[in-house]
């Protein structure tokens, strides 16, 4: 077990930022830590990286307790803080050298080759001679990831590594995380669902400091298989009340006067009834489209209801 978190809580005065969360991450897994802004993702990560102590509970990383052996824990983890703080007036290589020396002060000579490998790994070759302040946001993010990687940690903790990037940079960084995850355990936080689908083995969804889902990405999507969502459009306007004759219907979501989202369990039966309803009302059916639900919907359902 690479990371095991037990009943971790953090209070800021009376406010509960993280409320009794527990989860485990196995070696080599990529865990997506998901939640709306202010859900407690960063606070949890700060506790795992020994920046903040938990109010109660404990966590164990690679066999070391975050409270009892913080130095050993910090040796085993690489951390990219939120907003990626860097020294903008340092050169890329100079900064990586510093990050390496600070983590491994007794390292002799071969820092050059380690820095080169890391630069290759994160794809900084072209920009390696520049000052950090001169780099684009995507490359700064790579420097941040390189800094987290440089002492060859077993666990990588990345706090919103993709925030504020353009779509190309986003794809690059995701690919990078996937590659890094082949040999390492990674916990990364995000509030973007597609990212989790694209990158993660496991997902922990957190809302208001509590875990609301902890499952594999595939399982979460299967949860939705039971429910169907159908978009219908009628030629003429129609009252929401009238639609309630349809027996298979669970929920109606009004988009406009003649456009609705209908939810139910049995797709085939529901579509049939909608068609019969339209014939009965002599109101032509212009659209009948079954929507495939995404993890995005799970996210909405889990984090909005409470």
């Amino acid at each position, binding site marked *: 077990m690479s990371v095991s978190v037990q009943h971790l809580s953090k209070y800021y005065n009376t406010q509960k930022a993280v409320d009794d969360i527990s989860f485990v991450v196995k070696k080599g897994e990529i865990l997506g830590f998901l939640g709306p802004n202010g859900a407690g993702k960063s606070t949890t990560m*700060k506790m795992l*990286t*020994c*920046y*903040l*102590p938990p109010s109660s509970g404990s966590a164990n990383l690679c066999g070391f307790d975050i409270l009892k052996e913080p*130095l*050993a824990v*910090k*040796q085993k*983890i690489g*951390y990219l*803080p939120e*907003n990626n*703080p*860097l*020294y903008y*007036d340092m050169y890329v290589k*100079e900064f990586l050298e*510093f*990050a390496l*020396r*600070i*983590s491994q*002060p007794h390292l002799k000579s071969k820092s050059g080759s380690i820095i080169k490998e890391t630069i290759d790994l994160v794809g900084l070759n072209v920009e390696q001679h520049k000052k950090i302040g001169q780099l684009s946001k995507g490359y700064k993010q790579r420097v941040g990831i390189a*800094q987290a990687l440089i*002492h060859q940690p077993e666990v990588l903790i990345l706090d919103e590594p993709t925030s504020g990037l353009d779509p190309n940079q986003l794809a690059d960084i995701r690919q990078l995380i996937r590659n890094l995850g082949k040999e390492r355990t990674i916990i990364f936080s995000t509030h973007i669902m597609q990212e989790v689908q694209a990158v993660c083995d496991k997902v922990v969804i957190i809302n208001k400091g509590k875990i609301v889902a902890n499952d594999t990405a595939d399982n979460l999507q299967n949860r939705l298989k039971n429910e169907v969502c159908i978009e219908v459009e009628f030629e003429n306007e129609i009252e929401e009340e009238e639609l309630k004759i349809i027996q298979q219907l669970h929920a109606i979501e009004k988009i406009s006067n003649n456009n609705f989202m209908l939810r139910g369990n049995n797709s085939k039966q529901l579509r049939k009834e909608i068609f019969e309803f339209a014939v009965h009302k002599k109101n032509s059916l212009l659209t009948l489209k079954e929507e495939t639900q995404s993890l995005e919907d799970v996210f909405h359902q889990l984090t909005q209801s409470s």
Partner: protein
Amino acid sequence: MNAILKKEIHLFFSSLIAYVSMGVFFIALALNLFIFDGNILDSNYATLDTFFTLAPWILIFLIPAITMRSFADEKQRGTLEFLTTKPITDLQIVLGKYFAALLLWTFTFLPTFIYFLAIRKLSLEDAPIDSGATYGSYIGLYFLGAVFVAIGIFSSAITNNQIVAFLVGVFLCYLMYDAFYRLSLLPIFQGQLDYFIQSIGLNAHYDSISRGVVDTRDIVYFISVIALFLIGTRTAIESRKW
């Protein structure tokens, strides 16, 4: 600790901070010693008293200016989170920054020996400069600067605003250097507490060493004050955990 020390030194010398601080200190004192009204060439006495009286007052402003960046900037940019999540202790970060600033103070301090050499050369053989007292004064001044560096680092750690760090630093340096001495002169303390209050301040110990007698009590005092402010700095850094 070495990595932090190296980084800080590099930052001092790759920017203008180091050169300006060395230049300002050396030139301001040289002007007062040799050129401005009341200089030693006119007074005909081979002594560096002007230098040792004036230097602390310049340091009260100069050293907080050197150290105000130290932690305040790291806090402002968020890089303190980067440092504190690396496998080093908070004390190592504090010491790394302290010794880097101390090294810069050493480099600022050393060129002033030129004044001593110059005056020794100029003085007449039968009225030479008092070497013992001067060496003592140099030792005292070095320790005084070392205490100011600790105070400056501490002021920088309690805020994320560099200007605030500077102002608090100047105030604390003044307080430690002069205020206790002034306080002891107040009539209500006369005869009972005045000696005790004076000995809390830096001034009394600086003067004591300046007489040419390096007393272990003074050295212990300086080192204790430095340790006190560095522990305070570590506490300020760890206050995030409260």
